């Protein structure tokens, strides 16, 4: 009964606010937006707590095994993503209350439609409906990204975002067309029954094409170029949803399609390779940033790589790890973005070097930021910690991927802690003229003012939730992951109205091993942060070789991130060709 509300409610509220928003008192408009998001979160949470359900819109049940209508096929993974999305939108709505100097009900409208898109995307069981909600989400995201379009420079980031993601969406649509021509159906389970065991080159090519659009959204190498530009352009409250839920939604779609529709073991190697590359590129680029929002954006790329590695093993263990990781990462990363937003609000800058020592004015932001950095590196207790452990456990047979995942945790944690030490403790020497990457600072979004409660409360709330997420029932996540990969069970539930029993969860990694690993990554992250801050005090014999490796590595990677949209589309074409060729011609 609850199924349609996560989509219908935000849409109605958005249309109402857009039509009447400037006539209503500001407080009332804010209350409507926040209320709609909160009720949506509640509906999704109830769906998450329940067993998998199938809801046919219009009451149009399948006839003799043929799905005619559109269904929401809701399981813990989809409902969980919807809960996470609505919590992040809620935080973004609160944070934006005092963030824009002028009333911003259009911003709220965009956020609400974005939420409806994300919820529909997470819950649907129909391939074309998935694409429609993907586009709802994208259209709203483009608007959010370009919202503070005062200068040409930032607007370019929004244009890059729109062009690359639309190109990806076209490729996905062409894949859907191929599959439709083969099956004459659009329901995931129905299509699965028609293509299962017939994975000829049409199905393989279609799988590559369909996945491409979602991998672009997930910022997987080599589709990642748009992400940092878009985050630098977007207002902070939009960034938290982009990084915390939208990127993960792309990965969720890949897992969902693999589980319910394709079931192709051939996907393992290309996805794993892409995951490893994403971890490493994200880690290096993250560490090389001084613009805080870009730093966090590149760390999102690294973590998307980690999540993809968990998904790519195509086993319940890795998938349930990825699910937990998404929850923890989304909450932590959103809190970190809010901290960056508070710095921009209070100190009117977001450049790590320019802010040297100035964070002492706002020590509480520093505490939140440091806590976020530690959790990002994999410190317990969060769902991210358990997810990290499960992903490592699942990657037992893939040492390179394990290494890449570890590097991603260390480097992103170290980058955040380094920025934290420099800004809030004034550690390290002042480096006023250190070479930056061209993009160092951005225009403040507000007049400098003390930080209002509507900004720090959401950040603290998200971190508290991140810590609370450690107590999410992991067996539930494990069996939901096993169920997600079981296309046959889904098909019987969707098409034959059966209620298959939930599978048993995969074995977990022993806690001690996870704790030891977390101690290692967190310790190395702190050490790396301190070493970077005090590198001038190290003997030259140590600094020389590091510089000789690091400078060309970071320099050449940076050189690839030109910010030119033509380059990004060229990489996209190359990426889809590589993914397709690895599936079709192997």
């Amino acid at each position: 009964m609850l199924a349609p509300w996560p989509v219908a409610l935000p849409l109605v509220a958005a249309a109402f606010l857009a039509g009447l928003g400037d006539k209503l008192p500001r407080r009332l408009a804010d209350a409507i937006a926040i209320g709609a998001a909160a009720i949506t979160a509640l509906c999704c949470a109830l769906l998450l707590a329940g067993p998998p359900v199938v809801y046919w819109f219009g009451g149009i049940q399948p006839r003799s095994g043929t799905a005619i209508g559109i269904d929401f096929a809701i399981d813990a993974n989809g409902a969980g993503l919807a809960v996470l999305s609505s919590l992040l939108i809620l935080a973004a709505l609160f944070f934006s209350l005092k963030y824009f100097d002028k009333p911003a009900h259009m911003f709220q409208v965009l956020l609400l439609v974005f939420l409806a898109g994300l919820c529909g995307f997470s819950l649907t069981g129909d391939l074309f409906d998935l694409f429609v909600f993907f586009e709802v989400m994208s259209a709203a995201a483009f608007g959010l990204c370009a919202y503070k379009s005062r200068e040409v420079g930032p607007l370019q980031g929004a244009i890059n975002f729109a062009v690359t993601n639309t190109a990806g969406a076209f490729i996905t649509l062409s894949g859907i067309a191929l599959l439709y021509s083969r099956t004459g159906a659009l329901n995931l389970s129905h299509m699965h029954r028609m293509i299962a065991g017939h994975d000829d080159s049409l199905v393989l090519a279609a799988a590559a094409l369909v996945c491409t659009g979602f991998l672009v959204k997930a910022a997987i190498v080599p589709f990642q170029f748009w992400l940092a530009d878009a985050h630098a352009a977007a207002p902070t409250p939009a960034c938290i949803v982009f990084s915390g839920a939208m990127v993960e939604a792309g990965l969720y779609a890949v897992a969902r399609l693999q589980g319910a529709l394709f079931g192709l073991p051939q996907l393992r190697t290309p996805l794993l390779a892409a995951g490893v590359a994403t971890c490493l590129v994200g880690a290096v680029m993250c560490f090389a940033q001084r613009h805080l929002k870009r730093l966090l954006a590149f760390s999102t790329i690294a973590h998307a790589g980690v999540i993809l590695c968990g998904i790519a093993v195509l086993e319940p263990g890795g998938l349930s790890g990825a699910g937990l990781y998404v929850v923890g990462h989304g909450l932590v990363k959103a809190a970190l973005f809010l901290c960056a937003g508070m710095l921009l609000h209070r100190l009117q800058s977001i450049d790590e070097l320019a802010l040297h020592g100035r964070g002492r004015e706002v020590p509480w932001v520093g505490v939140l930021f440091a806590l976020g950095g530690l959790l990002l590196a994999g410190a317990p207790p969060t769902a991210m910690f358990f997810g990290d452990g499960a992903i490592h456990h699942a990657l037992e047979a893939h040492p390179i991927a394990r290494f890449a995942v570890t590097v991603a945790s260390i480097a992103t944690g170290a980058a955040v802690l380094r920025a934290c030490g420099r800004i809030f403790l004034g550690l390290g020497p002042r480096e006023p003229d250190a070479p930056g990457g061209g993009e160092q600072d951005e225009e403040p979004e507000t007049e400098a003012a003390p930080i209002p409660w509507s900004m720090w409360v959401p950040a603290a709330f998200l971190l508290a939730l991140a810590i609370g997420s450690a107590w999410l029932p992991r067996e539930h996540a494990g069996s939901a992951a096993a169920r997600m990969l079981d296309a046959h069970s889904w098909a019987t539930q969707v098409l034959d109205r059966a209620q298959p029993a939930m599978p048993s969860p995969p074995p977990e990694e022993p806690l001690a091993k996870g704790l030891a690993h977390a101690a290692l990554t967190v310790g190395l992250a702190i050490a790396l942060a301190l070493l970077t801050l005090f590198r001038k005090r190290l003997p030259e014999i140590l600094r020389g070789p590091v510089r000789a490796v690091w400078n060309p590595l970071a320099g050449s990677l940076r050189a690839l991130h030109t910010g030119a949209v033509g380059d990004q589309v060229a990489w996209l074409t190359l990426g889809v060709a590589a993914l397709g060729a690895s599936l079709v011609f192997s």
Partner: protein
Amino acid sequence: MKARLVLFGIGALGFAAVWFAGARKLDPMGSYHGAYGEILNAVSVPERHSTNVVSAVNFDYRGLDTLGEEFILYISVVAVAAILRKQKDEEEEDEDEAPTQLREAPDSDAVRLFGVGLVPVTVIFGLYMISHGSVSPGGGFQGGVVLATVPLVVYLCAGAKTYLRIAPPALAKGGEGLGAAGYALIGCLGVLAGKKFLENVVPLGTPGEAWSAGTITLLNLTVGVAVGTGFVELISSFVEELLRKAEK
């Protein structure tokens, strides 16, 4: 630049190869063996009283997709309006010196006559398409765009002042919200009646008549309103500074 072309060239070749490998296995053109279409052709008139099966699919069997699509258009219009308006706020100071290009009514009587002839035909055609979506090809989306061209023709033939009189921005904005919310609310009616979201709750009427097919026709109406006013708002926000001058 050259490196990019090489990169793209390799990528495009690979992409073409993958596409060709997939498309090679397609069935010959025109063959159809899905059960889906056969079932719909058989059931849409008896069940939904809609002689246009495409409308039955768009607004009933797969009505949720259309809800999403309507909101894609809606949110795009909202986003464009928000972005253009925001830029306007910051450029208000240098706008006063902008050369006046206010669009007055054209000198040519022929253009005006053309407009006078075109507007009524377009209005009737648009309304017909929206209201007959469940009977014949067309529907709320197509009819809405056709209707939206009316203010545009007026703008071209009678100038900005007349445009503002027949399509005031507040009306366009309100209609857009009403149309978009209306679709979702009609969906909610199903739930309120104890059925599923988007399930039909109104009498079905006689197949082949304009007011038949229950919610299909109502949903067509909301889409027509949302799309028509949405396009008008889009046009208005592009020519906003000219319209504001006309207001003064």
